[in-house]
């Protein structure tokens, strides 16, 4: 009998092979994809996120855990789709125009996937128009933008203004992050959320989704 806790442990250790092996076994034993996701992969990444926030784990450990989780997701996803399991929310993410750095953005993306979000990754050096087009096309609950440079962070404000002009601002919540970003800056450019690290980004995203579920709108 596969103990889902062992899947969680394998994710936490960043052991991709063990994660995949245990998921396959769980399939054979007729565990539901939803159970495997919630009590195996998500639980594992949840603990990793918590330890990251408390500085018990650091970026390299988080990255290999996220890699194991992602490899697990690759074999789990088709089954999830088959059984009609829904994501907890849809997120678009990208590093802002002019910025090629993407380690922070990738970390947030992996943590969001690990928490059960559907994430559409636009990559790095994403133009204002590309963000706008993606919001129109995918209608996400949340738009996440990242910047590492003080020279590129100003483009975040442009994205928010463009979405406003397109009449879409009340349809999507905007979260921002990256080394030079602060809560003050987020407020100044009217972003809905800021988080200083990837694990808190997940909390913030969940908080924004919960608000939406209560009010019925973003």
């Amino acid at each position, binding site marked *: 009998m596969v103990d889902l806790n062992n899947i969680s442990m394998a994710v936490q250790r960043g052991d991709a092979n063990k994660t995949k092996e245990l998921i396959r076994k769980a399939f054979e034993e007729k565990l539901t994809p939803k159970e495997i996701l919630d009590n195996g992969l998500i639980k594992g990444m949840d603990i990793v996120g918590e330890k990251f926030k408390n500085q018990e784990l650091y970026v390299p450990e988080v990255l*290999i855990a996220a890699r194991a989780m992602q490899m697990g997701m690759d074999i789990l996803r088709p089954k999830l789709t088959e059984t009609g399991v829904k994501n907890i929310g849809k997120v678009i993410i990208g590093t802002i125009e002019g910025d090629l750095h993407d*380690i922070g953005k990738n970390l947030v993306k992996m943590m969001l996937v690990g928490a059960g979000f559907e994430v559409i990754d636009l990559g790095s050096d994403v133009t204002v128009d590309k963000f706008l087009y993606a919001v129109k096309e995918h209608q996400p609950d949340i738009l996440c933008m990242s910047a590492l440079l003080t020279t590129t962070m100003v483009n975040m404000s442009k994205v928010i203004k463009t979405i406003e002009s397109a009449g879409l601002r009340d349809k999507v919540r905007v979260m921002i992050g990256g080394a030079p970003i602060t809560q003050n800056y987020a407020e*100044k450019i009217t972003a809905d959320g800021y988080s200083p690290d990837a694990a808190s980004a997940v909390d913030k995203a969940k908080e924004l989704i919960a608000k939406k579920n209560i009010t019925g709108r973003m």
Partner: protein
Amino acid sequence: MEFRNGIVAGKNPVIPLLGMPGVKLSKTSLKENLTCSETQYKTLSMLLDRFEPDGIFPLMDLTVEVEALGLKTNFPENDNPSVSNHPIKTREDLITLKGNWKGISGRMGVFLDVMGKIAKKYPLLKGAYVIGPFSMAGELMGAQDTALNVMLNPELVSDCLDFSLQVISDYARTLFDAGADTIAVLEPLAVILSPEQYKEFSLKPFKKLVSNLGNKSLILHICGNTRHLVELMCDSGAVGFSLDSQVDFKALKTLVPKDIALIGNLAPVDVFLNSIPEAVEKATRELVEDMKDRKNFILSSGCDIPMETPLENIDAFMKVARETNKIMK
């Protein structure tokens, strides 16, 4: 002015990391400054004339060393250049790349020339920059792959560090020869490491760098919240720590031995860039008050001051620095 290990003795100096706002002052572009020594010298001279700091560093550029090895960069007119491809995936890739190192080359010459010109004219503390070994390994392999390789392929990381160390040592030696009093080793990527990983992949090569350079004056600069690394950094052999605004300097007063200068740490974005002179004055006063009983404190910004920073904000910072220097030990 007297220097001890390249750090100013006998007073509490003020040395903001100023390069970028100078671009506005000299009405040039960032790219012109990073590719032409005449332009950068003019920019730094204008900064020195206007703000009269106790020391000067050149414009920050983390691509100089790897560009000299042939790595491709994305180089906008008014933005920091960044490396656009990270070629090292295997040991074989690294062996090929090693063949590209022919000694001082590329834009290293620009920075050496600037140092020579400044040294000839200005009797103040002259700092230079080099990239840190772990951050250079990060440029060679890409930041994310480097972080993954710390766990999955530490041998490749070590090999990249050895090679990086060789390039950095060669460059640093010539910067000292050109007149640098001290060199700040920029190691931004180290902030992602756990204390144990930092010890192996950043501190160890840093100590080797100190020894390669015959114990010359090196400052260690790591951006972001480095509180988890500070105790270990004390063993680095650096004469000063230049740390970012997320670190509480008050807490470091007793933690860091007095023979290591604490350099910092007003927030580049919240205090300098997105602020007004009154707020800059207030933040500067508060920091000086916090640090007044710490010998060997150099008032500065936590990291490079952004290009679009209003010059009046830097004026405000310098004004308070001058007024309050009297109350410092």
